[in-house]
């Protein structure tokens, strides 16, 4: 955490320069100026020293957890599995362990998520349910545009694990359908994810896919995604 503060202080020192740099991005949308690695220092840190990953998947090793969630598929290039331990009294997440199949940023974003929900004595489940991919991105110090989809699975795996905790503890009424509808059945991408992508400026199916990875494997959902994009653009920007 101390590290992150240091970085933000640095950027405060030269704020004008930083915002200006955005206008000078290369045509591929990736800029490496002022970087000494492919990703932010925080991403690098979490990729090389991942926190909270689970090595002991034996039955006894898993006994201590009371919720688990799995999202993604190896065919798509990303799979995430979370195990959580919720304190039933305080409803705080005491542990969050994980395994991830994916690229550097996928591994780093799962690691960061596990830190976010367990730091400072643990996050309450109601709060944890509200975590968005954008929250994780922020803590990572950002990701290159074409890597953003790597961070979108963590919050879904977390919600799946919390729902599993509700089920295991007999609180069936709390299992969230969340009013969200799963659109992409392979990756578990919801209408809300698509809405977020539109709010962030994605205008076409391709742009939404770049942000969310929707429809890469679940091709059947593409028409529905197109409709949703149309709907959200009218809703938020009054445009067709």
């Amino acid at each position, binding site marked *: 955490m101390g590290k992150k503060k240091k970085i933000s202080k640095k950027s405060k020192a030269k704020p004008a320069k930083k915002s200006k740099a955005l206008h000078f991005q290369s045509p*591929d949308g990736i800029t490496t100026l002022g970087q000494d690695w*492919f990703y932010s220092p925080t991403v690098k840190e979490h*990729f*090389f020293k*991942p926190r909270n*990953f689970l*090595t002991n998947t034996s039955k006894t090793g898993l006994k201590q957890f009371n919720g688990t969630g*799995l999202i993604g598929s*190896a*065919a*798509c*290039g*990303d*799979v*995430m*599995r979370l195990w959580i331990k919720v304190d039933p009294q305080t409803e705080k997440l005491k542990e969050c362990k994980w*395994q*991830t*199949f*994916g*690229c*550097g*940023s*996928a*591994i780093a974003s799962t690691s960061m998520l596990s830190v976010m929900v367990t730091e400072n004595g643990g996050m309450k489940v109601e709060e944890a349910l509200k975590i968005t991919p954008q929250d994780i991105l922020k803590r990572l110090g950002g990701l290159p545009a*074409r*890597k953003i*989809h*790597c961070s979108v699975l963590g919050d879904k795996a977390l919600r799946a694990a919390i729902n599993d905790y509700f089920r295991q503890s007999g609180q069936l009424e709390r299992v969230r359908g969340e009013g969200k509808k799963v659109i992409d059945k392979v990756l578990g991408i919801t209408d809300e994810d698509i809405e977020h992508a539109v709010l962030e400026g994605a205008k076409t199916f391709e742009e939404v*896919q*770049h942000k969310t*990875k929707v429809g*890469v494997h679940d091709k059947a959902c593409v028409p529905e995604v197109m409709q949703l994009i149309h709907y959200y653009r009218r809703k938020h920007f009054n445009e067709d």
Partner: protein
Amino acid sequence: MKEIYLDFAATTFVRPEVKEAMEPYFTREFGNPGSMHSSGLHAKQALDYAREKVAKTINSRIDEVYFTGSGTESINLAVKGVARACKRAGKGNHIITSRIEHHAVMDSCKDLEKNEGFRITYLPVDKFGLINLEELEKAIAPETILITLMYANNEIGTIQQIAEIAKIAKKHNVLFHTDACQAGYELSVNVQELGVDLMTLNGSKIYGPKGVGMLFVKKGTPIVPIIHGGGQEGGLRSGTENIAGIVGFAKALEICQNAREKEAKRLTKLRDYFIKELFKRIPDIMLNGHPVQRLPNNVNVSILSIEGEAVLLKLNEFGIYASSGSACTSHDLEPSHVVLATGVPFEVAHGSLRFTFGITTNKKQLEFVLKALPPIVKELRNLSPVKLTLKDIEREIEKQKALAASVKVG
């Protein structure tokens, strides 16, 4: 930290001899070959000399060698230039290519298909990445004007039977272009022996400069320019000639071709040793491409249950530079179309890892990689919730085959 560069299929460095040959043409002999003065004449002489050298090296006529700005540009010129020329002459609108071509070929074909009324056949390949010659012959129709197939694949290293393909093309009176960008370093690019009508080469894969390409166009081949202007290169490629680059390219190609047999022998030994040791030291890996009919400098394996980009980032920390066909290393969200075309499931393509050797590669470097890689694989497999074995993959391939067969029958 010592750097171990094993990504020579991506690009090579410029050989010192090549750089030296280029040197005079930046500041001293900077003239425009089109100018009517001695400075221009010297530039034109350098250009003529380079063209003659290339023609000798590829065994062609001098007026069959055209210089361009890159391999990609040469390919665009070959595919679009021939297609448009044939269309204008009312000769037909069908092109045959394969599913494992470089994007320069694939996307040029797709563009012609989408916007200019061409019909394209994308030939499948077998599990080694080879096209079937019978299938190729069957795909030829009366309106077929061009076959464009790569000599050696940049990702999996599979070498096609170019001379055989050329015979089939000739028999049916169809033009044949080959993308030989990966072949210039180790394979013969003698156009008489190969029997091709058009051939693309470039500088950045043969220890020459980037930004220089060459297209061999056999005399009499119908072709129109895609870049218009001052009429350089016989009107086929306008734009002031990149003299330094062209001189460097000619020199680089000559050196590579003179040394290629010896170099191929040396690299084949290293390649086979490296593959053997990888299989010994890392369980559950697969070789992508052909075991024998492959570029001597190419090793491409898929490591199950982990993702290629993560491996690259870890290798980078050891100063080892390789590449991967995983989705995360490409610009779109799908993994390598080449690895997928060989019939393996997506999860295998995501774990593909390519090492391509070059003139500085030696056994000591490979030993270091062989030491560094297994612990990285172990570590990432530890992190991964996916636990695939070769048996799982074999089953998946069988399932896909059965599905494809049932679709065909249905």
